[in-house]
C-alpha cells in the first residue's frame, strides 16, 4: 500500500514527525521553509551513513561548528555493521563537546532549534534529529543601560539575548531559590521568554496567575515588552501601569527578592516586573548607595518634581485666569504686564508651548545622533529666544515650562503619564481654574486607588497602609534597618489574596 503523502508546509508542520528517510526529511524541511535562502543543508557521510547537517545562515559560529561538530563527525569511524542509531548514540554520549544537545522528533522542534542558532544532525535510517547548541549570531555586548542612568550603581544593563540576561541575574543571585522558567510566546515568532522569581518569596498564586495570563495571550509575534505588558496589566483604562520595566539586572534582583515576578523577553533589553507599585517610580539605585539623609532628601525632591511636572503649568494658568488674588501685588503686576504683551490667551499659549516642547523632546529621541546637537540649538533659539522676543509667548510661561521639563526628567519612568496629565491639567485649569484642577485630581485619585495588579493594590503601601514599608517611602532608612525585615509583596497590608504559600 502506497504511503499517504502528507504535504507539509508552514501551517501544518508543528507536530509532524521527522521521518527516518533522509531524502523525505529534507524535502519536507525545504517545503516548510519555502526554500528560504538562509536554510543551509549540508549532506555528508558519517561513518558510512548518509546524513545531513542543517543550520540557519548567520546563526551559528563557524569556528565552533567546525571544531565541535564537523571535525569529530567527519573523522568518526564506527564498526562496519553499525546502525544509524549508533551515530546518534555517539553524538549524545561521546565526542561532541557541546553543553546544549537534545534529541528531537518533530519538525516543530527542528525549526525552532535551528532558528535559535542550533545545528541539527539527521541520519538516514534514524527518525528524529539531534540538535547541538553552537550559537554564533551577532549580539550586542553588555553595556551601560540607556535609561535608568545612575552614578553609584552597576553600569551593566540587559541586552537583547535572553540567555545573556539570565546569566547577568544569576551572577548576582547565587542561590538555588532563584528560578528561571523558560518558555515560548508568539505563534510565529516563538520568542523565548523567561519568568524569573524567588521560590521562597514569590507567592505561588501570583506566579500561577502570571503564567495563566501569559498562556492566554494569543500573539502572532512578540518583538518587545510592550506586546506582553497589556496581558499582565489587566486594567486598560488606568492612567498608570501596574507593570514596570527595567534595563538593570540589579534592580530586577532587588524586586525579585521582594517577591515580585520578572519576565525576560528575547529580543528586547527591557525586562517586565509585576506587580509594580506607584511609589517605586520614585526609587532608584542611587538612593540606596547614598547616605540615608541624602537618600531621603532626593526622595522628597522626586515627589515634588512629580507634582511640578504634572500640575505646575495647569496651576499657573488657573491662578492667573481665575485666582489672581493669590499672588502678591508685585508679582501680579509683573505677570500681568507679561501677559498683556502676548496675543493669545494664557491657556492657548500654555498648550502651544507644551506641544512644542513635546515635539522637541520626541525629535530629540528619534533623530540621528550626528544631528543631535541641532535640536538643542533649534529648541533654544526657536522657543527660548525667538518666541519670547517676538511676543508670541510670555517669559514667565517659559520659566514655568523650563521647570516642568526639568522636573519631568527627574522621574523619567512616569514620562508618559506626566505628558498627558500636563495637557489635561492645562485644559482643566484654563476652563475653570483650581476647581477644574480639583476635579481632574479627584478623577486621578479614584483611578489610581482602583488599580490592582494580580491582587496587589497599586497605591500600597500608602493605601492600604503598611507602617513597616514607610521606612522606604517617607524616608530612606539605612540598610541595617531595611534589610532586617524586608517588606515582601505578600505582606503589604490589605493583601489577602495571597496566603504566604510560597513555592516551598
Amino acid at each position, binding site marked *: 500500500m502506497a504511503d499517504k503523502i502528507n504535504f507539509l508546509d508552514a501551517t501544518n508542520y508543528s507536530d509532524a514527525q521527522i521521518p527516518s528517510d533522509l531524502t523525505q526529511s529534507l524535502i519536507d524541511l525545504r517545503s516548510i521553509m519555502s526554500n528560504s535562502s538562509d536554510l543551509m543543508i549540508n549532506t555528508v557521510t558519517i561513518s558510512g551513513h548518509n546524513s545531513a547537517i542543517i543550520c540557519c545562515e548567520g546563526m551559528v559560529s563557524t569556528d565552533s561548528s567546525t571544531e565541535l561538530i564537523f571535525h569529530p563527525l567527519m573523522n568518526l569511524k564506527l564498526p562496519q555493521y553499525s546502525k544509524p542509531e549508533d551515530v546518534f548514540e555517539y553524538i549524545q554520549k561521546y565526542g561532541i563537546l557541546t553543553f546544549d544537545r537534545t534529541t528531537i522528533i518533530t519538525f516543530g522542534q527542528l525549526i525552532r532549534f535551528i532558528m535559535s542558532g542550533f545545528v541539527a544532525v539527521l541520519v538516514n535510517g534514524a527518525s528524529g534529529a539531534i540538535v547541538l547548541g553552537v550559537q554564533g549570531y551577532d549580539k550586542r555586548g553588555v553595556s551601560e543601560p540607556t535609561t535608568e542612568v545612575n552614578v553609584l550603581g552597576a553600569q551593566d544593563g540587559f541586552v537583547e539575548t535572553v540567555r545573556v540576561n539570565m546569566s547577568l541575574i544569576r551572577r548576582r543571585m547565587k542561590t538555588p531559590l532563584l528560578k528561571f522558567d523558560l518558555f515560548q510566546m508568539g505563534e510565529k515568532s516563538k520568542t523565548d521568554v523567561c519568568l524569573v522569581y524567588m521560590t521562597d518569596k514569590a507567592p505561588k498564586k501570583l506566579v500561577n496567575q502570571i503564567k495563566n495570563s501569559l498562556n492566554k495571550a494569543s500573539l502572532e509575534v512578540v518583538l518587545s515588552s510592550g506586546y506582553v505588558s497589556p496581558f499582565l496589566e489587566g486594567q486598560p483604562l488606568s492612567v498608570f501601569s501596574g507593570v514596570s520595566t527595567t534595563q538593570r539586572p540589579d534592580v530586577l534582583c532587588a524586586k525579585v527578592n521582594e517577591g515580585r515576578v520578572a519576565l525576560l523577553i528575547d529580543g528586547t533589553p527591557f525586562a517586565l516586573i509585576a506587580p509594580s507599585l506607584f511609589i517605586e517610580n520614585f526609587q532608584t539605585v542611587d538612593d540606596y548607595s547614598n547616605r540615608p539623609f541624602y537618600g531621603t532628601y532626593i526622595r522628597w525632591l522626586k515627589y515634588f518634581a512629580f507634582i511640578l511636572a504634572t500640575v505646575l503649568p495647569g496651576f499657573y494658568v488657573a491662578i492667573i485666569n481665575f485666582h489672581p488674588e493669590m499672588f502678591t501685588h508685585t508679582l501680579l503686576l509683573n505677570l500681568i504686564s507679561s501677559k498683556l504683551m502676548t496675543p493669545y490667551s494664557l491657556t492657548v499659549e500654555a498648550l502651544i508651548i507644551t506641544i512644542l516642547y513635546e515635539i522637541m523632546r520626541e525629535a530629540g529621541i528619534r533623530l540621528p545622533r550626528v544631528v543631535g546637537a541641532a535640536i538643542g540649538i533649534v529648541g533654544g533659539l526657536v522657543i527660548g529666544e525667538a518666541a519670547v522676543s517676538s511676543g508670541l509667548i510670555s517669559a514667565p510661561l517659559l520659566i514655568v515650562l523650563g521647570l516642568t521639563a526639568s522636573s519631568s526628567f527627574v522621574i523619567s519612568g512616569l514620562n508618559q503619564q506626566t505628558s498627558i496629565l500636563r495637557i489635561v491639567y492645562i485644559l482643566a485649569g484654563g476652563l*475653570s481654574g483650581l*476647581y477644574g484642577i480639583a476635579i481632574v485630581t479627584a478623577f486621578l*485619585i*479614584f483611578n489610581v486607588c482602583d488599580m490592582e495588579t494580580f491582587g496587589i493594590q497599586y497605591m500600597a503601601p500608602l493605601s492600604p497602609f503598611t507602617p513597616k514599608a514607610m521606612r522606604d517611602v517617607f524616608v530612606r532608612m539605612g540598610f541595617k534597618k531595611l534589610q532586617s525585615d524586608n517588606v515582601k509583596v505578600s505582606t503589604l497590608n490589605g493583601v489577602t489574596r495571597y496566603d504566604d504559600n510560597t513555592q516551598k
Partner: protein
Amino acid sequence: MKKISYGQVIFLLFICRVFRTLTFNPFRDTNSGVLMWSILISTVLQMIILLPLFYIYNKHPGKSVDELAFGISKPVGYIITAVYALYFILLAGRAIKYFTYFMTDMFPSIKNYYFIAITIVIVAGYGAFVGVEALGRSSIFISFIFIAMIIVMIITAQGKMEKINLDIAVQNPADDIFSCVLKELGMNSELTTFALLLPYIKSDIKKAGFILLGMKLVVLEVIVFIYTTLLGDYIKLARIPLFVVGSYSKTKFIERFDALYMLEWTLCAALTVGLFIFLASKGIKRMIVRVKDTYIVLGVALVCLGVNFLLSLSHKPFDMMLDKWFTSILMIVLACILPSLILLVLKAMKTKAE
C-alpha cells in the same frame, strides 16, 4: 466581594462628616460654648445609636441591614432597600446642593451653578463606579490633605487666637442645648452608611465606630475652638466659619489661600457624593438584578442631579431637609431604630420557628 479595612471606613466617614461642616453651618444663631457641648453630647448618643449595627455585624456577618430585611419577607426587604436607596439619593442631592451653593457664593468667577453640579456628579459617579475599595483608599489621601489644610490654616492665619474671643462667643444668645444636640445629630447622617457598608468592612467594626466618633469629636471641637478664638463675634455673620478662617491665611508669597482650600472642599464633595451614589446603587441593584451595575450607577447619578435641581427650584423642600427634627429623626430611625426592629422581628420569627 471587595472589602475595606476599618481604617478606610474611619477616614471615609470622617470626610463625609467633615464635608457638612465645610459647606454648611446651621449654628449661626447659637454660641460656640453650646455648640462644643452639643458636639460632645451628640457623640455619646451616636455611640448608642451604632450599637444595633455592631450587633448585626457580629451576629449576621456579611449582611447589610436591607439584606437582613429580606429574611423577614421579600416585600419587606424591597421596601427597606428602597427606603435606604431613596435616603442616600436624597443625601447625595443635598450634598451636591450644599457644594454648589458654596462654590457659587465663594467663587462666582468659576462658571455657573449647573456646570459645578454636573461636573461634581460626573466625578462622584466615577467614584461610585470604581467601587468602595477605591473610595476607601482615596479617603486616606483626602483626609491627610484635610489635616494638612487645617495645619496650614493655623500656621498662616493672620489673626491671633484670643481667649477673649472665646469668652465673647460663649456669651452670645443661643438655642437651648437640646435643639443644638438635635441639629448636631442631624449633621451626622454618615452613620446611616454603616447600615449598608457592613458587608464591605473587613474586620473590627467596633474599633472603626469608636475611633471614628473619637476622631470626629476631637477634630470638630478643635475646628470650633479655632474659628471661635480667631473670629470671635464675627462667626455670627459668617456663612461657613472655617472657610472664613481660611480666607485670613496669608504668607509673603501667597496673598490668599482660599482658592487652594477649595481644592480640598472639592475632593471632599466628590468622595461624599460618590459614597452616597455607590450605596444607593447597591440598594437599587438588589431590586433590579438584571441591569448592569454601570447603568445603575449612571441612573442614580442622574437622579441625584435631578434631586439637586429640584431642591434649587424651591426653598421649601430644602428648608425642610435642614430642619433639625427631620434630619436627626431620620438619621436615628435609619441608623438605629429600623435595624433594631429588623433584628427583633427576625429573633421573634426564629423563636416561633423553634
